[in-house]
């Protein structure tokens, strides 16, 4: 099997603009990845330079070639994001070539990944917040919820209570998490989290300091009860070195943008070596559930949309009774509805590349 071309389209899914990539081969198999929209041009460039004519089953070797090809100019930022998406599409092809679901190709046993509900709407009303967590808990059995916090301590305390109450209708012992998205200084984080901890037992605090600030993260972890969880804003494994070396994280966030599936699995193994659990970030179609199956210490997966919005792609990952379970469809389970894609595609799209 050889890679012959890539096709990309831009679509709007709820709040986000996504790029849909389809990696074509000389067989009928197509590798699918859904990612951020701003990498679109790079997907074509890197495919042309490295992937055309290559066997997609050599994915970890090709992963190395893609990064090596960009060593001097830059392999972080957008380039990393583009390589990551291509790596996802290659793994999809590798699994499809074996006619097996991705989780099995990765060596996992059927995934049953603990999930937590993650509200992405800090500006919403208290009522909509309460309703959202309650409906997710009722329909999908979520046993944990994560709240965006940071700018208004009184409101955050109130809304933490609302989230707890909404989740508690189904699960009295629901786990509570908060996410400051790097908006605090370390000492600010300690003050605010300690005050929250007087009233709530928090499982983790996400990004309580800047992504690179291992000293700050360590300081926060030493100053509060709950675990410090971060890493989603870093690029690849090497960026985690100071965090591992200083043990400044208690939970390591992992996503396919950390160098694709190849990079995410490396990161999870490294975290395992330090006895650190990993938390899978939210992903289109909750596809990350496949990866969790092959990670020795996966703690939970973030879910924003239990079912994909927008109707352009379907997923094979079901959220039920508080777990994500991936099905048996070959590959990563993402299936593009080409009719819907044609309608949803944003002007100028689709763009085809390759011979």
């Amino acid at each position, binding site marked *: 099997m050889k890679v012959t071309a890539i096709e990309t389209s831009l679509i709007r899914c709820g709040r986000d603009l996504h790029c849909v990539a389809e990696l074509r081969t000389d067989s009928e198999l197509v590798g699918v990845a859904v990612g951020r929209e701003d990498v679109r041009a790079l997907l074509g460039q890197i495919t042309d330079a490295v992937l055309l004519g*290559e*066997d997609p*089953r*050599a*994915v*970890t*070797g*090709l*992963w*190395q*070639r893609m990064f090596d090809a960009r060593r001097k100019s830059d392999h972080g930022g957008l380039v990393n994001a583009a390589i990551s998406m291509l790596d996802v599409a290659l793994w999809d092809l*590798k699994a499809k*070539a*074996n006619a*097996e679901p991705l989780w*099995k*190709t*990765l*060596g*996992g*046993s*059927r995934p049953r990944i603990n999930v937590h509900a993650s509200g992405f709407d800090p500006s919403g009303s208290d009522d909509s917040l309460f309703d959202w967590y309650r409906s997710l808990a009722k329909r999908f059995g979520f046993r944990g919820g994560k709240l965006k916090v940071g700018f208004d301590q009184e409101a955050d305390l109130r809304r933490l209570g609302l989230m707890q109450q909404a989740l508690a209708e189904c699960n009295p012992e629901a786990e509570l998490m908060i996410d400051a998205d790097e908006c605090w200084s370390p000492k600010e984080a300690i003050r605010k989290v300690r005050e929250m901890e007087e009233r709530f037992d928090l499982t983790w605090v996400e990004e309580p300091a800047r992504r690179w600030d291992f000293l700050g993260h360590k300081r926060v972890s030493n100053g509060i009860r709950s675990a410090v969880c971060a890493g989603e804003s870093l690029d690849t*494994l*090497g960026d*985690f*070195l100071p965090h*591992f*070396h200083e043990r400044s994280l208690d939970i390591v966030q992992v996503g396919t943008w950390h160098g694709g599936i*190849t990079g995410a*699995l*490396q*990161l999870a*193994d*490294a975290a*395992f*070596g*330090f*006895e650190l659990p990993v938390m899978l970030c939210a992903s289109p179609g909750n596809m990350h559930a496949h990866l969790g*199956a*092959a990670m*020795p210490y996966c703690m939970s997966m973030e879910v924003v949309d239990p079912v994909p919005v927008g109707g352009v792609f379907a997923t094979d990952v079901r959220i039920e009774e508080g777990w994500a379970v991936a099905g048996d469809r070959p590959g990563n389970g993402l299936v593009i509805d080409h009719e819907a894609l044609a309608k949803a595609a944003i002007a100028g799209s689709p763009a085809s590349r390759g011979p």
Partner: protein
Amino acid sequence: MRITGFRSEVYLMKADRAVGDANLPEGVDLLPGSILYLETDENITGISLGFGGSSVKALFPAIEGADPRETVGLWTRLNDWVHKAGNEGEANYALSAIDIALWDLKAKIADEPLWRTLGAREGRVKAYASGLDYCLSDEELFAFYRRMAELGVDSGKLKVGLDLKADLRRLAIMRDALSIASPRPNLMIDSNEYWSPKQAVRYIRQMEEKFDLTWVEEPARRWDYDGLRLVSKQVAAAVATAENINSIADVYPLIANEAVDVLNVSALHSGVTGCRQIANMARAFDLPVSMMNCQANFMAQVAAALPNHNMMEVVDPGREHCLKFASRIEDGHIILGDAPGFGIEIDEAKLAELKAHPPVGKGRFPFPRREGAGRYIVPPAPGEVPWRRGR
């Protein structure tokens, strides 16, 4: 596909030549062999070489009936299975052998070589020559490294530790033998934990006055991260270690304490799954890994897919009596074929013959530690090694 059963064979083989190090300089030529066969309901058999002894029986219920393609999940299940009693010692070797056989099955089911299953682009791994050569005469030493250099191998690792003067002479012999492959071959030494850390520093510094050493292996005890770090700080060469530790948990203190510059890994000790975990953890710290020697270089299948693998140890004492395989060494690299799985087949007739007529030779089971280790050096007695003549 389901795992239905297993069979293990344990046998003795006589190598074509003896192998020895600082702990047993006179060497042994009798080596233990074992083979684990994992059977499935679809007539495909997974094979593992080495350590698949009696402990497999206790672990087998954990994987019976499972789909062998779920290698990583089953690795976790096996570790959890033995959690309380521990996954060390015999249990670890059995666990690793099972893991190897599972990966062999996974690749065979996909009808591809394991290097491809693991995602490598090429079945090709840079090799370094390792004589396990304390028991070889100077002439035999030269012949071994020259033979390797003729295959394009440009790196060599010498067993040292008991006699600085002899070791310096033999380092020069190794370098000269390899010089047809490279004007500047990589030279490594291995003292197999015979020295204390400061003994290592004194010894290695004297060597470094005359030779540029790429790495020094096991210059202190396997677990002694303070001692290994001390050596690394006080010599120019990289410190390689970890061949005698098994899991990522044991590697943790070495990495966290900056005690290691090159990690020796082995699927026989950690399984394919554990080996990859260790390599990935090392990669986070930008440390290379080096695959250990083994029969038919079968672990090169794994090394080919590790992103931070530097070169794999190759020895040729002749240990493949009952194995059929297609890998070869060419241009200084192990070239793996396209045969499915590890690409190893068992010659059952030869195996039966070996079992029926066990060879006679020099063997030591288990392999011992030499007197004086870590405290004072006991040089080879006259006649103990060919390069120290009897009176």
